[in-house]
């Protein structure tokens, strides 16, 4: 029965289709009632739809001809491009828009960066940077920079433990760092009635005077263009000042240039001059650190102990003589002798320490790091060229990473792809089902 109904329906469809295709809408003999009704409904619809006029057909043809050769009117940004650059092919418009956007960003950013750079850049260069203090400068002239360091600054700049509260006067030419106790200044006023370093009597604050023993050390980091040439120059300067190179360490950087660290010993009298000459080299000063340690007290202490022991030694020696003369037993002589040897050893140790101090005070040590330009940290402030080259390096780096990621993905593809394909298939099927349902909301509404 059901099958029969289905066949009837198929017959009805084919009959309807053939009648519609042939345009035979009038009822004919042998038509079923349903077919007649359907055909009449269609005939009614047929009449309800307008016919186009010949005039319209002609008009539309002309209109299409006229506008057909025109390109589609560009919209949005592309409309601007077609107005400004009518000769450029429209395929380039998206690229132009992208370039314009980048340019706009750059143009907007550069003044801001310059403004910030001018403010952030330290006028005193590496010397000021070294302390890692982001402080407003109080005073600045051709010879140096003066700024105040509070106790908090001194604490917070953990790396520079040599920073003590007070006023700091840093000179670029003499490469000396003078520190004044904060009490010497009237509050934040600055050194109103204080002798600035230029006027200060030399020797009192810097060079150790004859009866004082001061160990001086300095470490410099120089940015150089040619490490080898700079190293030769360094050797010359060292020889001129009567110093020598006590240790040398050379290595190759990632970029393939040489980086060298040198320790130099110079007579303390030549210390300042040496620093000045190093600074005068064809190199940029990245950082410097100068420390002095007063070891006078230690030395005096050592000296006193040594003298004491020497006195004791002398007495013991006399005692030993006396015992020998008296013909004491070997046991007694031996015990005195042991004591004497022990004291002698202590004296030697003390003398050695004193020697070391003397030498340290007599020869200052300067550590110099020669850093090739390529690996030097960027100077403060804004430099468009540097930013560009950095950005380009980053681009290359990113491309490498993308390539790496792709290769990894390729390697893992056999593992990951099958489950992904299954998921994609499921999603696709669901989406198709949903789409069909929305496209034919009442397909089964009978």
């Amino acid at each position, binding site marked *: 029965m059901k099958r029969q109904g289905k066949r009837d*329906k198929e017959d*009805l*469809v*084919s009959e*309807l*289709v053939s009648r*519609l*295709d042939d345009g035979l809408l009038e009822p004919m003999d042998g038509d079923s009632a349903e077919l007649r*009704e*359907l055909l009449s*409904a*269609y005939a*009614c*619809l*047929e*009449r*309800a*739809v*307008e*016919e*186009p006029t010949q005039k*319209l*057909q002609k008009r*539309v*043809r002309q*209109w*299409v*001809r006229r*506008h*057909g*050769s025109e390109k*589609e009117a560009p919209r949005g940004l592309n409309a601007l491009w077609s107005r400004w650059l009518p000769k450029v092919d429209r395929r380039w418009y998206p690229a132009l828009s992208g370039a314009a956007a980048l340019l706009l960003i750059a143009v907007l950013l550069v003044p801001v960066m310059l403004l910030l750079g001018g403010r952030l850049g330290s006028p005193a260069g590496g010397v000021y940077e070294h302390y890692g203090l982001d402080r407003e400068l109080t005073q600045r002239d051709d010879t140096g920079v003066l700024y105040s360091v509070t106790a908090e600054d001194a604490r917070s700049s953990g790396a520079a433990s040599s920073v003590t509260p007070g006023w700091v006067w840093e000179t670029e030419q003499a490469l000396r760092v003078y520190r004044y106790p904060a009490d010497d200044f009237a509050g934040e006023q600055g050194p109103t009635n204080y002798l600035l370093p230029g006027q200060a009597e030399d020797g009192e604050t810097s060079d150790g005077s004859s009866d004082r023993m001061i160990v001086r050390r300095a470490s410099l980091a120089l940015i150089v263009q040619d490490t080898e040439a700079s190293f030769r120059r360094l050797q010359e300067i060292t020889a001129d000042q009567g110093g020598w190179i006590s240790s040398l360490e050379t290595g190759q950087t990632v970029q393939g240039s040489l980086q060298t660290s040198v320790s130099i010993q110079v007579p303390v009298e030549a210390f300042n001059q040496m620093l000045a000459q190093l600074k005068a080299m064809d190199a940029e000063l990245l950082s410097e650190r100068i420390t002095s340690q007063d070891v006078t007290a230690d030395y005096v202490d050592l000296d006193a102990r040594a003298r004491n022991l020497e006195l004791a030694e002398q007495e013991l020696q006399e005692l030993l003589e006396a015992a020998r003369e008296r013909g004491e037993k070997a046991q007694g002589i031996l015990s005195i002798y042991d004591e004497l040897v022990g004291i002698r050893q202590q004296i030697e140790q003390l003398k050695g320490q004193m020697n070391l101090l003397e030498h340290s005070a007599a020869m200052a040590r300067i550590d110099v790091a020669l850093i090739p330009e390529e690996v030097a940290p960027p100077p403060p402030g804004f430099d468009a060229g540097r930013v560009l080259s950095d950005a380009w390096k980053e681009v290359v780096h990113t491309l490498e990473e993308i390539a790496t990621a792709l290769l990894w993905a390729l390697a893992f593809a056999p593992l990951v792809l099958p489950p992904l394909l299954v998921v994609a298939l499921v999603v696709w099927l669901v989406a198709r089902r949903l789409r069909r349902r929305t*496209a*034919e*909301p*009442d*397909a089964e509404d*009978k």
Partner: protein
Amino acid sequence: MNRAQLQDDKRANPHFEALYDECFRGVYRYVFARVHDTATAEDLTAETFLKAWRKWPPRKTNGSTPKAWVFRIARNVIVDHYRAEGRRSTVGLDEVEVRDRRGNPGTEDHLSILAARAALASLSERDQDVLSLRLAGLSNKEIAKALGVEKETAGMACLRALKRLRKRMECEA
């Protein structure tokens, strides 16, 4: 050969002219059956042929014909039109009446025409599509190609749409 020459070639293309003459009436009637408005139908018909001209020639796909291709473009134009207007693709009865500016109001013929249009407009989009393509003078085979379905499916869809249309028209009456 540069773009301008290609354009010239296109303009002289007799095949497009032939297609235009063949399809113009059908496209107009198809669009009219979907939008129920003379002015809109004229606009959308012109837009359809402009798009067809710009995309000419149709890409070769097996089974499809240039005629079916033009009707597919017309269908997209209609969809875009309704999307742009932000409206349902089926218009209400009052709207159909208001939009009709021709005929002699009041006569029975006019009323039955209005009823037929209203019934068509109240159908689902799919049904409207099937009947409108039929009204455009396409054969069952061509309808199937324009809709991208089998002949049998198209015939069945036509039957069902007509049945539903009749039911609506009876309700009106």
